[in-house]
């Protein structure tokens, strides 16, 4: 094992460049994952723990105890009483610099303690309430549903439309075929940001404002998808199609019984991309969906960070939920994503 770790390029000891490389990687790990990890840990903190400064990495929160005679659970402190003894006391109230405390075991006698003489008693506690309360307090369920609906439907339609177009462009010779291909690829050069206003007009004329379909439809014909699938389908031998035609199969049947299954690897890559694009979409939904009941998770997050500045505990939990699907997809399909991007240069 030690041999394996210290293995280098042919020589037996680590060259200084190796040390520098590993140092860089460790710093990189910290810089790239640190912020995300910090966010995830913070999302488990209670509201009061979030406002503590300096912040702690782990979600500590103050211990509380139910004392007979008091309605609410009281926060626990380690405090010095008049005799100078350190005891675990529960705080009843605080006026100025003096806190009124009681011993949870004997709640009848009140003890007055200077607030400088007490220290909060903390425990490690993951506040799952941030997550569970989301569903009751906001229309969080519908944001989630909107996001899932848009992502799933748009991805299915993208796969269908793009594979049909790619099939036509790779397996048929028809007049105008080249023009069509060039036109589709040319749209790569036109970023959606440039046609924002007229695209908005089209959507509003089609009565699709504040409609999830207004987000889905413009997205289902992606030039990248057509290009990716076409390149793949060009490698499928034409003889297969000829054989099927001999058996009197219709062109449609050839498409979905022969071409689609054979193009499955490329379809999978496009499916992953489409999933990421639609799940992460922001500007277009922001323009099309203005009523809050139609918001996607991304829009809800954006709206909340403006409005609920004080409600970071919900905002953080919602952010974590939004990043989970992408993280899962990435964890399981890392290899396909990185090789797909490296070879096609898409994102």
């Amino acid at each position, binding site marked *: 094992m030690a041999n394996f770790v210290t293995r280098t390029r042919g020589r037996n000891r680590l060259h200084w460049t190796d040390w520098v490389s590993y140092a860089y990687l460790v710093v990189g790990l910290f810089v*790239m994952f640190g912020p995300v990890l910090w966010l995830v840990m913070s999302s488990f903190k209670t509201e009061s723990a979030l406002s*503590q400064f300096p912040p702690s990495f782990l979600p500590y929160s103050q211990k509380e105890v139910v004392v007979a005679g008091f309605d609410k659970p009281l926060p626990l402190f380690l405090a010095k009483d008049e005799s100078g003894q350190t005891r675990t006391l529960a705080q009843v109230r605080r006026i100025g610099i003096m806190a009124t405390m009681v011993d949870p075991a004997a709640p009848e006698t009140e003890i007055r303690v200077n607030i400088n003489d007490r220290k909060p008693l903390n425990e490690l506690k993951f506040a799952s309430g941030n997550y569970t309360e989301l569903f009751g307090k906001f229309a969080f369920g519908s944001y989630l549903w909107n996001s899932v609906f848009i992502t799933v439907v748009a991805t299915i339609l993208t796969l269908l439309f793009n594979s049909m177009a790619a099939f036509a462009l790779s397996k*048929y010779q028809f007049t105008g075929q080249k023009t069509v291909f060039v036109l589709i690829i040319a749209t790569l050069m036109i970023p959606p940001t440039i*046609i924002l206003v007229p695209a908005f*007009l089209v959507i509003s004329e089609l009565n699709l404002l504040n409609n999830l379909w207004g987000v889905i439809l413009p997205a289902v014909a992606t030039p990248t998808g057509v290009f990716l699938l076409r390149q793949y389908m060009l490698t499928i031998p034409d003889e297969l199609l000829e054989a099927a035609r001999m058996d009197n199969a219709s062109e449609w049947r050839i498409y979905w019984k022969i071409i689609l299954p054979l193009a499955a690897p490329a379809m999978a890559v496009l499916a992953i991309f489409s999933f990421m694009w639609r799940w992460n979409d*922001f500007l277009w939904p922001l323009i099309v969906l203005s009523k809050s009941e139609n918001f996607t998770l991304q829009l809800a997050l954006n709206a909340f960070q403006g409005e609920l500045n004080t409600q970071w505990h919900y905002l953080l939990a919602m952010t974590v939920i939004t990043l989970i699907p992408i993280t899962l997809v990435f964890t399981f399909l890392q290899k396909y994503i990185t090789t797909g991007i*490296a070879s096609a240069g898409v994102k």
Partner: protein
Amino acid sequence: MSVFLRLLGLFFNLFEPVFRLGQKWLGASRIGWLFVGPNLLVISIFTFLPIVINLVYAVTGGVNLLPTQRPFTGVENFAILLECRDYSDLQSCRTDIFWRSIFNTIQFSAIQVVLMLFFSLVTALVLNRKIIGRGFWRGVFFYPVLLSPVVVALIWKWLLQSQGVFNAGLVALGSTPMDWLLDRHWAFFWVVVVSIWAHMGFYTLILLAGLQAIPKDVYEAAEMDAAPPFRVLRRITLPLLMPNLIVVLVLVMIRAVQSFDEVFVLTGGGPGSATTFIVQYIYQTGFAEQIHLYGLAAAASLILAVGLMALTLAQLRLSKASDAGKTKK
């Protein structure tokens, strides 16, 4: 799963009669139109048609969304955006926020391109070495690329807020906490940092692919000559990587010019207009302000389109030049 597939099969069968009919009608070769049809229709409606309408918007005024009900104003929109009494003084421009957004965008792109190239190159060089757990490290640097801009912005907003971890660091070092995003210089700084954090992995990947395509024997020859690592980098790696570096350079530029989401969520374009970029200007003029000035927004998008076109042409020129350079050797 099999039930799903069977349902899918039934659904697909529904199209069969349509295509049989089309086949009879169009003939065996022209049936391609039927397959490319849906895609073409969507692109026509949502891309080609808007391009045409955008031109109409740019030369008409008023606040009406319907192009037929907008008065023709000629180049008025462009004049509103671009006219200044004194071009050395932004304050004298009719729309100084537009100019500001352009300058911000240019400044942002220029700074970002240099830093992005540097960091993604260094990372790619490190990842290209014989290191343990290469796949894992590659994943580490790539992961933020997949996060949505809103999530990225919120992660950093949380780190940078007044009670955040950066301020805790400052206090621990004996300094006072800062309002990072309320100071115009710091806000700009963090916008650059966040954007590099979020996208570096993508460009690293492109450079890594380029590095792995460099033939090994060139390096073996260098080792025979006992060339020091730095000279190997300067004389072998960088020249051979040039095509990829150019691709990255242009992609970073094109993306930087179009920056919107992260910045919008992180700073809202502020403080003041310190981080307002051109796309945000278009969004605000066309959609966010009380009065929707579609004509101005369309004119601004045309100006943006010209800028992007220039970048794309520059890429074609540069990559042709570097290809020519390669064949000469």
